[in-house]
């Protein structure tokens, strides 16, 4: 078993400067890299793949320069001087855990030397922007050492180390070069794709090796005949035939390779088409209509709410102001009411003598008996008049007092009503805001649905390419069968010419038998691989899928079509329509089965596998996969999908490392 125990990164992807990640080793095989979107999860997987193999497969541009440029940390590039060397480095330390002490360490390192050759321009937002054509790739160095014996990729030891490194990679990391092994979140190869499954199984049971051996045996057979033919003319004829046969064998190899590439391409195109079909299906016309209907309803609702809010606000503004005036003047009203009350209580309002009469007395300065009024009498009369004035308006002031008191007593209720109307407006505003958000979502969804026509065009292109490739494949098959016929004719001819003088018929017959045997063994190996895969995949799938009691088995037929057989009571049924989550569980089961079958013991990497799984399946995958595979399981996951199951997994985890994006191009890794 081999474990990744340490990673060192320098200016790689979003990791600016140097980062040392110490994973260490433990009996717990689960390592979690926990990071949000843009945290650098896929970049770390890319780092491992690039360090070991010199390339990466996830979203890699076809152009080599662009692919290299994508690996550079742009912050470091921006900070580097023009034409000054800058390095991007990944170093991986693995430890062999096969019971031996001390553990054997294997260190891989890859360094990309680059330099910037153009100034970095600043965008309108002020961001620094390095350009791909402003970067010069200088060289890549790769190296490694085992047991700290410092065998570098130079000098006499180079070949040895290269061979060891190749063996190491092929033994432990097939998952990083074969796409049927890699799971990138929702992007994974569905094992229900027969071409991919055929490739995966035949590669793992070395079916190609049997073909190669068989071809060699056939050549050997002819060589034996030639070797033992003494007649010069016959020997020359045989030479010519063997030469032809060699040419045909080469052509056959080339054609078969081309046909195999065609098969792979056909698989990929079919997969692309089915993905497009799913997208087109999801974005169907019915959905557009539903969204448009919903938009109309929400828009109408918004229109009404806006009008209601406007009306309420208008009313509220006026009422609010009225209330404010009433509130600020309520003391004045209270005072006036108290003052009136004082006069009312007094009860000293004199009999209703006309004010005009009292005035005439005061103005005339005489009483009704014509006697002049004394100053004291004048004063009393003036007071009487004044009080009498109020007395005349007595009823009016009394009413005023009641009205004042009434106005003041109504005020708290008016305030309460005003506040309720404010809350009503707030409520309506909230509704308006949520409706507006929904309208924006609908608009986005409708915009994305505009892609339907784009998808359709892409699909047409794919379909055309598929026809072309299938035509090529058919032509190649015809060519191959023709070449095989010619090869057989040549073999017969060789046998005819050679056999007359052959004394070695026994070895010749033995070879024929061996060739037949090769075919049989090849078929047996493939059948047995398929059976093993069925068995392993069924076991894992039963452990991972929560409706375990209903699963009976997984079947792979001779055309590599897979199906899950469910059982309910005595009845069996086959499920063919899988959700994305179910497909992922199915894919993980196959991936685990492939590893078990092939005996690889290197780490297994799962990049964000949980986003489409519910909590129960996330826990099932994390708990069961480490038991099902012999090696380390490294999962890159998002905090929201990991947090709720952290506790359940704690006992199985060796280390949790957190990836955070602090700034653009400056991510951090912490324990």
């Amino acid at each position: 078993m081999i474990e990744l125990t340490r990673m060192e990164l320098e200016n790689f992807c979003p990791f600016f400067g140097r980062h040392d990640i110490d994973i260490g080793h433990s009996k717990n095989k689960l390592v979690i890299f926990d990071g949000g979107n843009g945290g650098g999860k896929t970049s770390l997987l890319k780092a491992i793949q690039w360090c070991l193999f010199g390339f990466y497969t996830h979203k890699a541009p076809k152009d080599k320069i662009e692919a290299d440029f994508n690996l550079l940390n742009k912050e470091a590039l921006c900070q580097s001087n023009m034409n000054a060397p800058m390095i991007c480095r990944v170093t991986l330390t693995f430890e062999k855990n096969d019971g031996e002490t001390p553990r054997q360490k294997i260190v891989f390192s890859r360094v990309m030397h680059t330099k910037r050759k153009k100034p970095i321009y600043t965008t309108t937002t002020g961001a620094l922007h390095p350009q791909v054509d402003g970067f010069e790739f200088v060289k890549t160095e790769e190296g490694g050492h085992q047991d700290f014996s410092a065998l570098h990729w130079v000098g006499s030891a180079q070949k040895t180390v290269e061979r060891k490194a190749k063996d190491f990679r092929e033994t432990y990391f097939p998952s990083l070069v074969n796409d049927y092994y890699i799971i990138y979140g929702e992007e994974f190869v569905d094992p229900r794709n027969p071409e991919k499954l055929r490739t995966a199984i035949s590669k793992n049971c070395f079916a190609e090796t049997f073909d190669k051996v068989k071809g060699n045996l056939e050549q050997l057979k002819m060589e034996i005949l030639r070797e033992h033919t003494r007649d010069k003319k016959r020997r020359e004829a045989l030479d010519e035939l063997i030469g032809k046969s060699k040419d045909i064998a080469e052509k056959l190899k080339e054609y078969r390779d081309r046909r195999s590439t065609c098969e792979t391409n056909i698989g990929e195109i079919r997969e692309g088409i089915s993905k497009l079909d799913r997208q087109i299906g999801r974005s169907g016309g019915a959905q557009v209509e539903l969204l448009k209907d919903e938009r109309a309803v929400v828009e109408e609702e918004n229109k009404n709410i806006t009008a209601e809010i406007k009306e309420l606000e208008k009313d509220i503004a006026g009422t609010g102001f009225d209330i404010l005036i009433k509130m600020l003047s309520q003391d004045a009203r209270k005072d006036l009411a108290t003052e009136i009350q004082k006069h009312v209580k007094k009860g000293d309002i004199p009999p209703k003598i006309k004010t005009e009469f009292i005035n005439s007395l005061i103005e005339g300065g005489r009483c009704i008996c014509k006697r002049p009024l004394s100053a004291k009498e004048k004063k009393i009369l003036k007071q009487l008049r004044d009080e009498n004035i109020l007395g005349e308006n007595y009823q009016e002031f009394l009413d005023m007092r009641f009205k004042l008191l009434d106005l003041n007593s109504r005020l708290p209720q008016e305030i309460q009503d005003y506040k309720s109307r404010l809350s009503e407006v707030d409520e309506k505003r909230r509704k308006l805001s949520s409706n507006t958000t929904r309208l924006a979502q609908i608009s986005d969804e409708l915009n994305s649905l505009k892609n339907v026509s784009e998808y359709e065009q892409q699909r047409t292109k794919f379909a055309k390419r598929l026809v072309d490739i299938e035509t090529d494949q058919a032509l190649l098959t015809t060519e191959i069968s023709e070449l095989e016929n010619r090869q057989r004719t040549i073999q017969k001819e060789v046998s005819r010419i050679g056999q007359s003088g052959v004394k070695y018929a026994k070895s010749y017959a033995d070879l024929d038998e061996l060739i037949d045997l090769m075919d049989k063994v090849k078929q047996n190996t493939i059948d047995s691989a398929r059976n093993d895969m069925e068995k392993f995949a069924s076991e894992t799938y039963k452990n991972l899928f929560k409706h375990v009691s209903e699963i009976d088995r997984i079947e792979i037929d001779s055309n590599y079509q897979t199906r899950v057989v469910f059982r309910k009571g005595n009845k069996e049924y086959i499920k063919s329509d899988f959700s994305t989550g179910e497909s992922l569980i199915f894919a993980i089961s196959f991936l685990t089965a492939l590893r078990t079958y092939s005996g690889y013991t290197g780490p297994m990497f799962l990049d964000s596998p949980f986003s489409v799984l519910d909590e129960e399946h996330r826990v099932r995958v994390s708990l069961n996969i480490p038991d099902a595979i012999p090696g380390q399981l490294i999962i890159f996951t998002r905090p929201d999908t990991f947090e709720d199951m952290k506790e359940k997994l704690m006992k199985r985890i060796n280390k949790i490392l957190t990836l955070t994006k602090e700034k653009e191009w400056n991510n951090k890794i912490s324990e």
Partner: protein
Amino acid sequence: MKARSESGKEPKVINIDKCYTDKIDEMKEKHKGDPNHYISRLELKQIYLFAIVLALKRGHKPKRSEKPSQLIRNEYLNSEDRLILRSLIFSSCDDMKILLPENAANLFDTAERLANAGMGEIIELLEDSEKIEKMILVESGKIPSK
């Protein structure tokens, strides 16, 4: 002494200083297209009463109009407005006689001077509706619910 029947002495229009009516007109013009602005939502009589309230609350000195200009017609004031106006004017002079019908002209004259005193601040407040809303909430908090 004026008889009760002389209540017709009440002015037919309510005036304030022209500088303020001009400012109000200017503000109305400025926010013509904004139906949400307070100036578009309020009645002039509310502005008038509020100016008097503010002048009394803040203790601003009453100001005679240099050039009186019509703000509203007297008839726009309803009985409730009149009640509030009367309480406020009583509060300013603390003499109930000001409320007598024969003193109506005097009452409106006092009101005009008080309105002029508070108008500057209210125009400023109207430019910032948040302040008014805050004031409403603060003041309403002081009122007992029952």
